[in-house]
């Protein structure tokens, strides 16, 4: 095989070169296919990477406790999609859980997160879409965030009408860059803005995107306003020392299990778990779009088959001559398969180069940060080669089966 290919690769390349326009048009299908797949996967990888960065901005030692089991009966991680639709969160966490977590060994900080429903009114105008979250004084520490202006509420004003806001709320609610001391009305009570968070790094699709749009109020205040009906959708905890993350996580887990009577209706996740569950759904989306893009690769393959069939008919005389000088059917077959493979491979390589240029363009002119990994390059190269060989097979079989005498007579 190797001795046959040595001569034939050169012949195949010469054949591709000698019909430049036709080869280019034939390759176009493969080029478009490879570009779309590589770009989609690259963008997906980029977003995944961004999300990972965002999650890691809270520190690698953040522990998240959520209601509902994190693994289903099969032992597989429950993805964000399920959490999003609340399919597995039957009940919220309770204040008792918060106390249990706080008292677990190695736990330094524990902050609850609860959504408080209700409209916010500022300057006599009701504002829709405002998210009010109830939490405690441990939140800035747990999120690894500093307060840019003002102060977070302390232990002693836990029951007061104070609020700390995300950066985007300042603009949307008060039209002011530093709205400290301004007030708004929520559930019939007047709240005074006490501090403002620095901006959270975020992009669309990320689970923390709404912290910039959130108003944080003390947990006790929220309980008072709602008559103790607030449920925590999440508790964020931090270990006393970063190296104790694992043991803190285990301690929380075992204590909660005990207080829940042995029922695992909660999940204790470290950053790696959160990352996994969010990148799982991103991978799913990326795979789906890439699969659709791969159809164009298939169409490219059909294009190659079409042109190779035409080429075989056109070169019937040549096939006759080659057979007359001693080419076996197998050698003719190899030659045409190889030619299709080379054609497709050249298209694939061109596609990869265009993708690299495209990624550079996207990085320069948009917020997306696509990544092309070496794995993607290897897979794209192999895929284009395989497509060429598979779709080149039928024309090559046709070429090999030609009768030498008929072929020689053909003009």
């Amino acid at each position, binding site marked *: 095989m190797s001795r046959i290919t040595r001569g034939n690769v050169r012949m195949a390349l010469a054949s591709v070169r000698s019909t430049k326009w036709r080869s280019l048009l034939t390759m176009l299908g493969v080029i478009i296919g490879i570009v779309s797949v590589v770009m989609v996967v690259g963008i997906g990888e980029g977003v995944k990477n961004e999300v990972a960065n965002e999650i890691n901005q809270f520190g690698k030692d953040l522990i998240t406790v959520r209601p509902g089991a994190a693994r289903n009966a099969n032992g597989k991680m429950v993805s964000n999609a399920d959490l999003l639709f609340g399919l597995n969160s039957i009940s919220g966490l309770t204040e008792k859980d918060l106390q249990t977590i706080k008292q677990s060994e190695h736990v330094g900080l524990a902050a609850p997160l609860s959504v408080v429903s209700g409209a916010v009114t500022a300057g006599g105008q009701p504002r829709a879409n405002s998210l009010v979250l109830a939490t405690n004084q441990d939140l800035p520490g747990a999120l690894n965030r500093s307060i840019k202006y003002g102060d977070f509420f302390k232990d002693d004003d836990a029951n007061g009408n104070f609020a700390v806001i995300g950066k985007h709320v300042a603009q949307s609610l008060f039209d002011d860059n530093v709205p400290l001391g301004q007030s708004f009305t929520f559930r019939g009570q007047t709240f005074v803005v006490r501090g403002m968070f620095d901006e959270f790094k975020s992009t669309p699709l990320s689970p923390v995107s709404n912290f910039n749009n959130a108003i944080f109020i003390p947990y006790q205040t929220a309980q008072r306003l709602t008559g103790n009906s607030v449920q925590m959708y999440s508790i964020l905890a931090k270990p006393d020392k970063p190296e104790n993350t694992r043991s803190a996580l285990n301690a929380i887990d075992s204590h909660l299990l005990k207080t829940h009577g042995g029922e695992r209706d909660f999940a204790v996740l470290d950053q790696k778990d959160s990352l996994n569950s969010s990148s799982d759904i991103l991978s799913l989306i990326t795979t789906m779009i890439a699969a659709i893009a791969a159809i164009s690769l298939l169409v490219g393959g059909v294009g190659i088959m079409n042109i190779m069939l035409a080429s075989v008919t056109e070169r019937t005389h040549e096939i006759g001559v080659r057979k007359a000088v*001693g*080419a*076996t059917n197998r050698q003719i077959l190899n030659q045409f398969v190889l030619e299709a493979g080379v054609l497709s491979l050249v298209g694939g390589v061109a596609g990869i180069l265009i993708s690299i240029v495209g990624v550079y363009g996207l990085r320069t002119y948009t917020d997306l940060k696509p990544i092309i990994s070496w794995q993607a390059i290897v897979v794209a190269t192999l895929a284009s080669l395989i497509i060429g060989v598979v779709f080149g097979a039928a024309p090559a079989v046709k070429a090999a089966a030609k009768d030498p005498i008929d072929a020689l007579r053909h003009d």
Partner: protein
Amino acid sequence: MALIELKDVSKLYGFGDATTLALDEVSLTIEENEFVAVMGPSGCGKSTLMNLIGLLDRPTHGDYQLRGRYVSKLRTGQRAKIRRDMVGFVFQSFNLLPRMTVIENVALPLVYKGVGVNRRIKQAATMLERVGLKNREYYYPRHLSGGQAQCTAIARALINNPSLIIADEPTGNLDSANSRLVMELLSDIHKMGNTILFVTHNPELTRYATRVVYMHDGAIVHDEQTAIGEVASTAKKIIFTVPTKTEEDDLAGVSALMKAVPDASDVKQDKAEEKKTARKKKTKTKAKKRGGKKDE
């Protein structure tokens, strides 16, 4: 052992009412180092015979032994290998690949033998030097004259050092000067020990042959030994009567030839006589040949 031994070989094309008998129980034995001219009108089965002998085609009936080996029932792949190693083809229309240079065309059979690129080029260059085309190595076939193209085709046929060269009207597309060039080349190759089979319509070219076979309607009707340098006696009868410049002349010559061919019943007698005279003449003509050619 004879190089080629055909025994009652028939070739049929088509089926039912449309069956054509291209070869009708032909028996032919060709020894090593013969230079055989095959003559006959169009459609008499000359090319079919060449294709059969060259293993491009299979006989419908009969046995074919190539150097003692039964080859008609071999698999396609094995036949291709024998073709590659033992047979060189020269065609009327040259059949060079237009997208390859002269040297690549000559080296083509070596590709299928698995010879490396460098050795291929080296061998092809040697072969081109032998046929006098050393300075045309990197030309494309379209830049060559007819004679040069045919010499390239001969170089390609020779590259694998085959014992048998089959030339189907090698001079059919050439003018007389180029025809002479090509025939001289084939004659040289014959002297190196190769067996050559060629089809021609031109009686003049039987001068180069040691044996002339006449065919009609798929059968061999006459077979005579002839001395190198002399036009075969049967072909001679028409040679100066018909000019052979256009295709029509050729065809007219062929009809004249068919008239000249004795009846099949006379063949045996003629053969015996020819053999006797041929032996006597052989020694004399060898000396004459050189001189005779220069006069042309």
